[in-house]
């Protein structure tokens, strides 16, 4: 039996928003979590201006849910402040994308990637 994917997951998997990354440089921060060996990895890269995120790119290795989550997240992070990254929780993504129970653990990796992005930001603007 194949897993079921919600229309939102299919849409983001088929047409990922903001795939890729920004070249390292002025105002660019990078958050990462997971690994290919683990089966799931997220790399988030963001351009910040002032105290808000201006643009986001994502890379993901993982199942369709994970790729969709990266894409979905890349749109949601724009406009957020650093504190909001730290406060970000996986439940939002779960609600939007409908992860099956046994895949919830993957969302914690996504959460780690968001927090890692927040920490990079903290290092960048201490």
């Amino acid at each position, binding site marked *: 039996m*194949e897993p079921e994917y919600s229309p939102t997951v299919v849409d983001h*998997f088929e047409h990922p928003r903001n795939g890729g990354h920004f070249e390292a440089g002025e105002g660019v921060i990078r958050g990462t979590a997971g690994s290919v060996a683990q089966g799931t990895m997220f790399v988030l890269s963001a351009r910040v201006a002032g105290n808000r995120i201006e643009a986001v790119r994502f890379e993901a*290795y*993982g199942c369709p849910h994970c790729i969709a989550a990266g894409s979905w997240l890349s749109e949601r992070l724009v406009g957020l402040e650093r504190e909001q990254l730290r406060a970000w929780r996986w439940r939002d993504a779960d609600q939007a994308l409908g992860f099956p129970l046994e895949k919830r653990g993957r969302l914690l990796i996504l959460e780690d990637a968001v927090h890692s992005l927040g920490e990079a930001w903290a290092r960048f603007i201490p």
Partner: protein
Amino acid sequence: MTPKSSSPAIYLDYAATNPVDPRVAELMIDCLRPEGAHGNPSSGHAFGTRARAMVEKARQQVAAAIGARPECIIWTSGATESDNLAILGVARFHADRGRHVVTSRTEHKAVIDAFKQLEKEGFEVTWLKPGADGIVRPEQVREALRPETQLVSLMHVNNETGVIQDVAAIGAICRERGVAFHVDAAQSAGKLPINVEAMNIDLMSITAHKTYGPKGIGALYIRRRPPLGLRPLSFGGGQETGLRSGTLPTHQIVGMGAAFEIGERDRESDVARITALRERLWRGLAAIGGVELNGHPTERVAGVLNVCFHNVEGESLRFGLRELAVSSGSACSSGSDEASYVLRALGRSDQLAQSSIRFSLGRFTTEDDIDRAVAVVSREVARLRELSPASHG
């Protein structure tokens, strides 16, 4: 001749099951029609003897395709039942003469799980490990044999990789040592020449639906001289010399007979055409880069190509390829994330095993199917790699 489906998917899953060949379907349809062969083949009256004659003709067709005598063929519901009847049947019958049996780690589940059941019944199983190419060397079998060994079971062609075992060499060793030799030939009938006598095979499982016949009918070849003791799995009317009771399904048996006759008659031309298509597919896939063949490069059946894709996660690859009806030994669903035990036994990592796809081609596959498949795979692999952090670093 290409079967069309209401689904636009490209069917490259012949190793899972075949469409029924239209020539076979027509004969089955004749049986199902009111003027068909509806009698019970065990009934003595005209309806019964007519059905019986069709059953016996099919038995001859199947026997001829594998170099057997017709009386050595027992009808079953498929290779799963044949495997179980052979393995559990021989082991249980001869249990008091010895409780050691031999098989490999890359057998079909029907064989593996029958042997696991024997373990529960107090048998000791030697699980041979094939090389990285998927091949069990005959010498491994010889070394595994003991005075109390009752049975060796090894498949002819592996269903996931298409790798061919040297069953003739293994058969010779078993015959020399007086050990019963069972072969699961579900994937090889109609694809490779088979001669049970020349190959010293004592029991052989076959199924119609992998050879363009119907699902739900199979057979077990059982050597009759000298007779091989076998305990049935179930009991009843005593059909099939008491080894397999139950009303014989004439239309199914007629379908299997015709499928095997056609399979053997068309084998060489089928194999030539399918081999050419498979090479075309492999050229297309290899051009993508970062792909590797699973299993032995040449000791393989024409229609199966099992390929692993580096740097692409398996579930996303499969979902991305959903226009193709292909198969993979892994299933990320239900949290089990279980990688193909066959590819794992060949030494592939869980991850590579999960990123492997089995493309299997058959009688109705066209060049267009192949070209479209290559296009889809190229597009998706590129897209997923592009999104992957692993590709850039």
